Every structure is written in structure tokens, then in C-alpha cells.
């Protein structure tokens, strides 16, 4: 070795020794090059064990962490649509929630806790609330409570991190979705615009009360399974949670709402990995549930729920491209319906993230061939482009433009138009 380098190593070892005064070995040629690294690993093992045994002693005061977070999002929208039914062209909306969490740590490998999402606005949709408890270990994670289940959360669909999310975003809050008689331009019930989630994720039990198991992620794969006994409510409403017979409020038009089903089981699998710098995310999910019994003994029966979804995203150097497919089959349709072909949806998207900017575009195409009694296509197309600028951690602004088009053969009205959304989001 050259003299200067020897001198450098000597300097280093002096620094190290005087810096710690703990008598640990300093660089020592006795162990050779590879020997030294082995020694480092070996001694770290001992120290790791020491630290752990100390941690075990400290269990009496098991660390409990209570957190307070929150979210606020404001969207201003300008709407231009064919059928506005004398509505104003602009409007605003907000979403606000308070997030309370408590997590205890039984050991390095076992944590438990609760998460509560509180909505300050009493008029907010109850379904947006999430509250659940969980236990998580190396064997997996069990959640019980009102929160989205395995099929929903493992689903991969087109990139939607820009704006409010394009087709997965907020534009549906601003547009007219029904004709003057209250009939949806697209479908009723399942697959309706109100249930836009169900056009890019398999129709599922939303965040109704359920029990979910998620496996650990192994070799990139994570699987999950949920069971929800009833689609009606997510709170303690007593015997109503045990109804097996439909009530009229469970029926939207000619199809069932979520609340019209019971015994939901959801399974999902999701893969996240990387190959030569190309990120891969893929998913598959399936949801099954039984339609409840007719309102009266001789009443109208409905089809059981059987829906599936699959998706794939590829990302490289900030770019993400991907898409997904959803098939809700004839779930929830009147079982004697003449025309009840598959309700299905495709989605595609491309986005690019660089520094604080995310720009992207995505599109959703959904269709159902026929109403329960009338033949004819119903089609929905949504095209979105938008950008998000993360001003600072927890604060972003965005702008997004959406074009949508509903066409249906079975009612006279259709609707198409555009929505421009500008807004800001804060998370703390």
C-alpha cells in the first residue's frame, strides 16, 4: 500500500478510537479484508441481541403512540354539460377528516392499535367514515371494523396520482347524472356513476363492517381476504344487521345497492417488484356475495354478486403506465331480467412524476349491454388530464380537466360535457 494511504488509514483509526473511547476494535489488519466485515457482522449480532433483551425488560412501559392527523381538500369546479337542468356552471366542495390513531407495541414484531377517521361535517356520507382495530405481526395482519377490504385495497388500476385522480377523482360530484325523471344516464345501482369506484375496482362491500386478513408481503406478493356479513350498515344498529330479507331501500332502480347483499367475501392478491429498474405492480381480486331474499316471499329475486378485477402498472424513471379491467357480471340484476349482460370497465393511464410535479392522463371506458327489460348499450367514457404540484410536504395544489360522455339506448337523454377542477389539499 502506498504511504499516503497508510497514513490516511492511520489517521482514520486514531479518529475512530478517540471519538468513542469505548474500546471497540478499530481497523485492524489482523482480520484481513473480508475477515473484518465478517467480524463486523458477528459483533453486531451480539449487540443486536443485547439491545433486544434490554428492550424485552422495558416491556412494562410498552410504547403506546397516539397520533392526531387530518386532511382537508378543496375543489372548485367549472362544469360545461349538455344536460345541466338549469344548474349553475361552477361550484365548490370540500372534504375534511380528522384521523386519530393509537398503536401499542407488544414486541418488535407485534403491534396493535386502532384507527379512527372522524368527519367534522355531520352531513358527510357515513360511508366515508373508517374506524377499525388491528393486530399486526410477522404472521400477517388482522383488521376488524369499518374500512375498505382486501379486494379494494389490493387493486391496482391506471395511474391516478395527478389532480383529484381523473376518472377515480371528484368530477362525478359536479355533473348531472340523471335525467329529469331521476333515471341515471348510465346504470342504476351497481355500476352507477354514484358508485364510480365499482367501475375501476370490483364491486365490493365498501367500508361496511368486516374482518380482513392481510398476509405479509413475501417475495413481492401480498394476499388478503375479507368477510363482511352484511352490506347494510357499518355501525351497531342491532338486529338490522341480521336482516336476510330485502327492504325497498336496498334497491336502486332495477338493481341492488351494496346493502342488498349479505355474506361478502373478498379476496385479493397483489405483486410489487422491480426488474432492471422497471417497477411492476399487478393485482387480481374477486368479490362474492349473496343477494338477500325478496322483499316478500313471492317478490322479485336478484342475482348474487360475483365480480372480479385485474390490473397492471409498470413504472420506469418517473413514468408509470398501466391499466385495469373490471367485470361485475350481472350482479344485483333482477334474476328474471331479459337483458342483463356483463357490466364491465376498462381503464388506462400514463403519468410522470418529477420532483414536486406529477402530470398524467387517464381514461375509463365502461359499458353494459342492456337494461333489465330493454336491449341496448349503455356506455360511459371519461378522459382526464391533470397535474399536481406538491408545494411543501403535506400541501399540494392541482388542476385537472375531465371530458365525459354517457350514451344509452334505453332512455332518450344522454349527457356529455367537461369538468375543470382546481383545488388544494392539505394533510397534517
Amino acid at each position, binding site marked *: 500500500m*502506498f*504511504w*499516503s*494511504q497508510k*497514513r*490516511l*488509514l492511520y489517521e*482514520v*483509526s486514531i479518529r*475512530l478510537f478517540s*471519538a*468513542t473511547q469505548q474500546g*471497540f476494535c478499530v481497523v485492524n489488519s489482523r482480520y484481513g*479484508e473480508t475477515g*473484518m*466485515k465478517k467480524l*463486523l457482522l458477528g459483533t*453486531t449480532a451480539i*449487540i*443486536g*441481541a443485547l*439491545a*433486544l433483551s*434490554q428492550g424485552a425488560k*422495558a416491556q412494562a412501559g410498552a410504547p403506546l403512540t*397516539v*397520533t*392526531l*392527523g387530518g*386532511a382537508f381538500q378543496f375543489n372548485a369546479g367549472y362544469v360545461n354539460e349538455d344536460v345541466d337542468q338549469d344548474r349553475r356552471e361552477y361550484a365548490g366542495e370540500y372534504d375534511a*377528516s380528522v*384521523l386519530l*390513531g393509537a398503536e401499542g407495541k407488544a414486541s418488535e*414484531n407485534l403491534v396493535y392499535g386502532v384507527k379512527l*377517521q372522524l368527519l367534522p361535517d355531520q352531513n358527510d356520507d357515513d360511508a366515508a367514515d373508517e374506524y377499525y382495530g*388491528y393486530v399486526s405481526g*410477522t404472521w400477517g*395482519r388482522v383488521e376488524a371494523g369499518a374500512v*375498505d377490504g382486501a379486494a379494494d*385495497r389490493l387493486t391496482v388500476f391506471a395511474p391516478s*396520482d395527478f389532480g383529484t385522480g381523473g376518472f377515480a377523482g371528484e368530477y362525478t360530484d359536479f355533473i348531472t347524472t340523471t335525467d329529469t325523471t331521476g333515471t341515471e344516464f348510465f346504470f342504476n345501482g351497481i355500476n352507477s356513476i354514484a358508485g364510480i369506484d365499482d367501475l375501476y375496482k370490483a364491486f365490493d362491500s365498501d367500508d361496511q363492517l368486516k374482518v380482513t386478513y*392481510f*398476509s*405479509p*408481503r413475501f*417475495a*413481492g*406478493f*401480498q394476499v*388478503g381476504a375479507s368477510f363482511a356479513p352484511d352490506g347494510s350498515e357499518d355501525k351497531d344498529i342491532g338486529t338490522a344487521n341480521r336482516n336476510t330479507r330485502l327492504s325497498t331501500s336496498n334497491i336502486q332502480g332495477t338493481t341492488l345497492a351494496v346493502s342488498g347483499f349479505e355474506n361478502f367475501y373478498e379476496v385479493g392478491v397483489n405483486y*410489487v*417488484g422491480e*426488474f432492471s429498474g422497471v417497477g411492476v405492480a399487478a393485482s387480481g381480486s374477486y368479490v362474492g356475495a349473496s343477494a338477500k331474499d325478496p322483499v316478500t316471499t313471492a317478490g322479485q329475486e336478484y342475482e348474487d354478486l360475483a365480480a372480479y378485477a385485474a390490473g397492471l402498472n409498470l413504472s420506469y424513471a418517473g413514468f408509470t403506465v398501466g391499466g385495469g379491467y373490471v367485470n361485475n357480471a350481472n350482479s344485483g340484476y333482477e334474476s328474471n331480467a331479459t337483458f342483463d349482460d356483463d357490466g364491465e370497465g376498462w381503464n388506462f393511464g400514463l403519468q410522470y412524476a418529477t420532483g414536486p410535479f406529477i402530470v398524467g392522463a387517464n381514461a375509463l371506458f365502461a359499458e353494459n349491454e342492456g337494461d333489465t327489460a330493454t336491449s341496448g348499450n349503455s356506455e360511459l367514457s371519461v378522459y382526464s388530464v391533470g397535474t399536481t404540484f*406538491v408545494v411543501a*410536504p*403535506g*400541501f399540494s395544489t392541482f388542476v385537472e380537466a375531465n371530458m365525459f360522455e354517457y350514451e344509452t339506448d334505453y332512455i332518450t337523454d344522454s349527457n356529455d360535457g367537461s369538468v375543470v377542477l382546481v383545488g388544494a*389539499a392539505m*394533510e*397534517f
Partner: protein
Amino acid sequence: MSLFWIFSDCPILSETPMTALLRRCTALVSPAFALTALLLAGCAATEKGPTQAPPTEGERQRERIGTVSGNREGFILFGGERPNRTDGNDNTGIGVNAFLWKAALDTVRFMPLASADPFGGVIITDWYSPPESPRERLKLTVLIQDRQLRSDAVSVSVFRQVQTAAAGGWQDAAAAPETARRLEDTILTRARQLRVASAPAAE
């Protein structure tokens, strides 16, 4: 097996040769074999510690734009460990493992620093001539590549120049590869000491 789980909070140790191989092989897989590898479930992350749930829509937004509190769950009202004191990922805004970063700075601080970027984990020293050999000079580049305290997260490059006959001229010269390796070992040793020093005291 149980031993493995016991030690699995210690990133250096918990990397078995197998997981190390798995991690490294991701870099070797060519796109042509990607699908095969996917089917074989070969090269992707395997989780350690308590299972993480896939995010809900709301949580996804928090991951996307971050939070004012800097914590995914929000402000810590009470309790909680001092931020990640056992793994060196504190919330100080350092982009790499804090133990490795401090250890690397400690190790090279007798040399003049040209630049030190705690976000990228790069330390570049200026040229340094040991007083005993003024005709040679050395320059170091230290790169810390991981938020975890692991043995392969630090790499050191050593550059050496010798003075030419012409006044003021310097010429690149070979540096013994052993030097870089030893410097890495030194940084790791120091990082380990820092970690031990910051571990919770026994009751």
C-alpha cells in the same frame, strides 16, 4: 427460524445470504426473463417485522403529498419512541441512514470537505496531502445508499495523485483497493458504535 425473527429488527444481521442474493439478483434479471422471474416469485422484497397493510385511498394521498407533521399518521400526541432511534432513520431530513452518515463524517473529518449532501448521502473531500508525503495527495468520495444500517450501504472511492516533475503538476496514480475497503469497515464500525450508544438503556 425463531432466531431469525428475534434478530430481524437488526437490518445488517437479518439479511441472510439468501435474501442478499434475492435482492442482488433483481439487478441481474433482464426484461426478457422478467415474466419468468415473476412467476417464480424470485426477485422482490420480502417484508420484515409487523405486516404493513395496503393503503386506503386516504392513506395513499398522504403517501403521495406527505404530511405537514412529517409523520404518516400525523402529529404524535403522546407516547411513541424517539423517532427510529434504533435504525438511524430519524426525522431530521437526512435522506440516508443517520448512523452511517454521522459515522462517515466522523471518519473523514480530518480531511477538508469539498461537499457533503445529507439527502443524497454523498461526501466528497478535497485533495489531502498527508504531511509525511507532500508529493502524494488523496481524495475520497463516500456514498451512502440506504436508509438502513447495512454493510453494503456504504461505498468509498479513493483517488490518488502524485506530483509530477513539472512544478505544480499532478498525475493520477493507482490507489490500493484495500484502502477503500478498510475505510468502509471503519465507517461501519463507527456506525455500529453510534447505534449501540443510542440504544435504550437497560432498566
